[in-house]
């Protein structure tokens, strides 16, 4: 396996050491190989293709700015990396270069109780922040599957989705403003207007939304001011078995339209995963209960949660739902972040033996009316893939409301696929990429979006991003070229190399 530094001259390494300090410039094999992948599907057999040349761990925005200026001077790629838990490939280096790991930028800088915000460095984890806020009676309610591992900088980079966003909003709503080091090294603060804790403004362009979901292509977030909210008095999780998926689909729609303000999350699992345990939520449901399941979670003050709980339980009972009991409901809900604690699933080979599988989650946003058809098509694509290649296994589909502050409208259609990564080869990887492309096209054809919270950076889906965005993709390319004239920030991602092709430049002039 090739491990030599490909493109970092000694003089540039020396400059990086004077910016970050000797101890925080890493060139050893372990430091670089461990930052080649994130937690999305990865062609393990081609690991060496994605190894950065050098890893740097800056501590301040000024250091990040100096690193980016150096990259421009030496024409070196820069790839930012936060928790490394992304299910898209934003932090996977495609051309070596400098990997900027932000984990040392982990300081909680300020809690502003009067204005209900916290200002943090981008390497702060959401769970750590909520633990810190407990004495103040506050929480930071951004809760992805990687809640205990991912970092606020990565949540900005991916424009992620939160499991409790139906009540509290998603990162784009919860991050009030943030500081960005631009691809030129300049430092700006973006938000709604100028004040760092202003939630809504009509001053100028709303640049926060341009940089939210930048996937490392437009710079590096170095500080964020986030919304903090009152810690709920209580929560009520409840899981119900339903007769079949369509019954679950209908009741999901009914619950969404009840207008319950304390509803943090409602979801529908199809039950396939319950054929055998996969070290994930729902493992508390015993064998024999492998049926589709609808669940919800409410948060708020007790009077509200009790009242809303009665209402939703009535809806589910009238729809034929069977309550799975307090133990299942409580522990399933409490284990909702286990996906990242237990990195390998226990899949099954065709001979029935257990195999270690990476559990991939594909995350389209789909209008409610299209969910049954899309689910059918998704399942067909993955079942056909797994028939041809034993290294893939259809696990399940899960559906959650996609929007912020209320349920209903469009939904996150999650498709779970087990991948036996150690056995991947060029042929099976090509089949996976084709399946990703086919899934993305289905989402677009049904009025949806390829990804609701992970990003569109992976092989396969990135090819069809222009199909989803239409002419807006041309605008994206112009923005990229304007802000990053030397294409140093995460080059090769999201098809944005096209912004630097001479044909595109000529069209523009």
């Amino acid at each position, binding site marked *: 396996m090739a491990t030599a530094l490909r493109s970092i001259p000694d003089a540039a390494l020396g400059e990086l050491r004077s910016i970050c300090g000797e101890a925080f410039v890493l060139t050893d094999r372990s430091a670089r190989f461990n930052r080649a992948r994130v937690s999305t599907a990865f062609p393990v057999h081609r690991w060496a293709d994605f190894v950065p040349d050098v890893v740097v761990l800056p501590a301040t925005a000024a250091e990040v700015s100096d690193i980016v200026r150096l990259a421009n001077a030496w024409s070196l790629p820069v790839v930012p990396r936060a928790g490394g838990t992304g299910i898209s490939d934003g932090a996977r280096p495609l051309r070596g270069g400098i990997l900027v790991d932000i984990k040392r930028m982990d300081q909680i800088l300020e809690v502003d109780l009067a204005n209900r915000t916290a200002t943090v460095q981008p390497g702060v984890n959401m769970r750590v922040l909520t633990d810190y806020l407990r004495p103040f009676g506050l929480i930071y309610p951004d809760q992805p599957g990687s809640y205990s591992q991912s970092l606020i900088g990565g949540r900005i980079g991916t424009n992620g989705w939160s499991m409790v966003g139906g009540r509290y909003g998603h990162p784009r709503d919860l991050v009030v403003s943030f500081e960005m080091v631009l691809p030129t090294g300049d430092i700006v603060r973006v938000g709604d207007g100028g004040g760092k804790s202003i939630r809504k403004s009509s001053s100028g362009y709303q640049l926060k939304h341009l940089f939210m979901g930048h996937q490392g292509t437009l710079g590096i977030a170095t500080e964020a001011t986030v919304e903090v909210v009152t810690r709920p008095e209580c*929560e009520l999780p409840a899981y119900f078995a339903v007769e079949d998926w369509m019954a679950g689909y209908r009741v999901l729609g009914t619950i969404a339209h009840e207008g319950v303000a304390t509803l943090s999350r409602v979801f529908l699992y199809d039950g396939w995963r319950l054929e*055998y345990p996969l070290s994930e939520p729902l493992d508390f449901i015993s*064998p024999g209960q492998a049926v589709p399941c609808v669940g919800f979670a409410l948060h708020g003050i007790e009077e509200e949660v009790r009242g809303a*709980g009665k209402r939703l339980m009535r809806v589910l009972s009238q729809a034929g739902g069977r309550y799975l009991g307090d133990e299942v409901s*409580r*522990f399933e809900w*409490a284990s909702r972040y286990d996906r990242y604690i237990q990195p390998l699933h226990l899949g099954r080979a065709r001979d029935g033996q257990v195999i270690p599988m990476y559990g991939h989650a594909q995350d389209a946003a789909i209008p409610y009316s299209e969910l049954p058809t899309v689910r059918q098509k998704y399942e067909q694509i993955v079942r056909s893939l797994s028939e041809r290649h034993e290294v893939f296994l259809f696990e399940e589909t899960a559906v959650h409301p996609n929007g912020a502050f209320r349920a209903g409208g469009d939904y996150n259609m999650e498709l779970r696929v087990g991948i036996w990564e150690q056995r991947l080869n060029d042929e099976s990887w090509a089949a996976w990429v084709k399946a990703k492309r086919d899934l993305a096209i289905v989402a677009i054809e049904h009025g949806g979006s390829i990804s609701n919270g992970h990003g569109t950076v992976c092989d396969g889906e990135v090819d069809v991003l222009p199909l989803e965005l239409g002419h807006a993709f041309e605008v994206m390319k112009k923005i990229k070229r304007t802000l990053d004239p030397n294409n140093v920030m995460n080059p090769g991602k999201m098809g944005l190399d096209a912004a630097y092709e001479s044909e595109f430049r000529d069209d523009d002039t």
Partner: protein
Amino acid sequence: MRGWLLADQITPEPTRVANGWVMRRDGVLEVDPELMRTYVRQQDMPRWDFERIVTARQDYLQSMETHMADRVLSGAEILQQVTREAADADR
């Protein structure tokens, strides 16, 4: 502190509860060791280690229950109320 016990060094015997599943302790489901022979080998684990892992898991889940909110309400209790009210309305 509990001293050394021979029983703690022995792997608890599994009971088959369904196709592909066994239990060594009430409520803790495990993959049948027969299915872990070829690609992933299951290890024998002394009872003390098994108990340690199960307890740590329960501690974690309990900590998660009070991480975001102060307390968890009982769905069973609320459902009972709903059922009672529906029965009263029928009478």
